[in-house]
């Protein structure tokens, strides 16, 4: 019971229109019971970025994935990304040689 009253007061604070309140209230009830998926988009989809959070762009892999993971030149499926690792005679990946 207390949960419902909390939700009702929260929804009342957010919107003022009566009809909208009712639909939102029923919407909340229905999501609380898990019967219907909420059609309204989330108001804050991503949590705010903190001071120490890294930007997503910085961690991009220099080697790009092939479309559908199929190498267009050799038609290899599930092979290594980027240029052919054995092109210099050893097994090269990101400038590191791992086998020769």
């Amino acid at each position, binding site marked *: 019971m207390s949960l419902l009253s*909390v939700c009702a007061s929260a929804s009342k604070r957010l919107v003022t229109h009566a009809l909208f309140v009712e639909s939102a209230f029923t919407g909340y009830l229905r999501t609380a019971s898990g019967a219907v998926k909420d059609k309204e988009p989330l108001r804050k989809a991503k949590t705010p970025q903190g001071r120490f959070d890294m930007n997503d762009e910085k961690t991009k892999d220099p080697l790009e994935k092939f479309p559908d993971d199929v190498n267009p030149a050799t038609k290899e499926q*599930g*092979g290594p*990304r980027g240029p*052919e690792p054995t092109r210099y005679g050893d*097994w090269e*990946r990101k*400038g590191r*040689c791992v086998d*020769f």
Partner: protein
Amino acid sequence: MASISRVLTKRVLSSKALPVAAQCSSRSFHFSIYGKKDYAKVSDDISTQYPVVDHEFDAVVVGAGGAGLRAAFGLSEAGFNTACITKLFPTRSHTVAAQGGINAALGNMEGDDWRWHFYDTVKGSDWLGDQDAIHYMTEQAPAAVVELENFGMPFSRTEDGKIYQRAFGGQSLQFGKGGQAHRCCCVADRTGHSLLHTLYGRSLRYDTSYFVEYFALDLLMEDGECRGVIALCMEDGSIHRFRSKNTVIATGGYGRTYFSCTSAHTSTGDGNAMVTRAGLPCQDMEFVQFHPTGIYGAGCLITEGCRGEGGILINSEGERFMERYAPNAKDLASRDVVSRSMTIEIREGRGCGPEKDHVYLQLHHLPPQQLATRLPGISETAMIFAGVDVTKEPIPVLPTVHYNMGGVPTNYKGQVITHTEGEDKVVPGLYACGEAACASVHGANRLGANSLLDLVVFGRACALTIADTCTPGEKLSPLKPSAGEESVANLDKIRFANGNTRTSEIRLNMQRTMQNHAAVFRTGDVLKEGCDKMDAIYQTMEDIKTFDRGIVWNTDLVESLELQNLMLNAMQTIHSAEARRESRGAHSREDYKDRMDELDYARPLAGQERKPFEQHWRKHTMSSVDPKTGKVALEYRPVIDTSLDQEACSAIPPAIRSY
């Protein structure tokens, strides 16, 4: 709200999902599966200070890398009660870093035959490989790769769904005359990682008992037979004796004897040292594979493509020194020429850095766009491992150890052998596989993508041989109650050692000496000087000082034990190198630049007289060390020149190795 949270927490506390350890004070880390037979008994036969637990198994595998896991579950599959002792969690073994591929003559890209793979491997080994073992490995290769794929290893595929094979590692068609062969199967760029995880996952289907984070100290030998292993449990400091009829050693290589190596810190040659302390010889320890450009400090290798794209090597004076050593090829000379030139520059005092022990690889004279397109990811690699911006500063590099061809000598079935009275004799109860073993498929030089194949084929071979010769549940031979006393005494001595030099200092001395004297540049005087220095460093082990006196997770103790193992490996490597007066494969000497075989294969053979066994060098070195004095004794064993079946595959007679 508060009432809800109280209800929730009450439920969590009363659930049985919490580990036992959190609830009661007596902690038991090991799971005992209900109804499983475990004959573990506590005894105080060898020590009243250390609790000793005795176990009995049908087979014990030491090491859980690619070869160890394959042997362990092969044995469990055959019905043996198997224990796998490992000092690391299985998926943390160094196999995980092998990111190349596996060679197998599957014939998916073009017509292929395992006999051509056999020829390539024999030639790559510079005719020091035992041809019967190479025959076994290359013939079993397609079946082994298909078996791995059936276990679930996600190889990359062609459009038809067959395993995609690429060209790599000196493989050819038609016995060298048909051009490049495509034999290397891979899993994107993480073959070793995928192999290890596939094997580990597969091994969990069988009931192998894993003893993870147990450091194997010594073999328990009696009457020349191996009757088990004694190990230290790092978690609680108890000693465990594992009695078994069959012991398989799969402990990996010993890269950490050198200052610069690509191996993990745990590659300390424990198996080789255990075998040496048991009085058995190790084979071909002087053959160590180097790569010219490994990043200083980190040990990662920089690809030759950097030099291919225009990168140059410079010394402390800023001079492009390769012009002096290889006027035509300059920086694109072959790997051993480049390694030797770099080492000569460092020896003559023109090295860079505060210790003057490396050279620089310069790439900032190339346009950054070209670097980014031709070698994507290199700026990341240089920043992470060397801490330099590759577009502004050069990368510090030096020749780096990558693989050890030598190890415990075995025959093609995986049984450990000794060579007495001119014949190979099997040591009963002892087997070896993987990088720790030397069935001699790699001979004097390992070809790329052959080592992962070596792991799975010989891991399986050990399991098959044991299944052929023994039955599960056989009665064990008696073992003296005091077996393993010396290992515990040594452990106690190291734990309370109170000399003057720390473990890390002795280890650094050994690594620097090996890097300066037993690396790529080998001549008589340099090696002799190195041998004398190593003898002196071996004596300083008496003066070792450790700090941690505890017994629970004492890493100081374990590192000192590992240093003892490394020392034995290093002594054998440098003394064998000093004795071998020829250049063959990875062992090249400036004063003896040619291969010395029983016949001179560069000239027509008719009319030549065969040199006697003592005068030529196409033979395996068998080295043994007296652990108390550090004295190395060397013997020699002939190479096996016949294949397993002369009709199926004829052996390759020696010839000059040129590519």
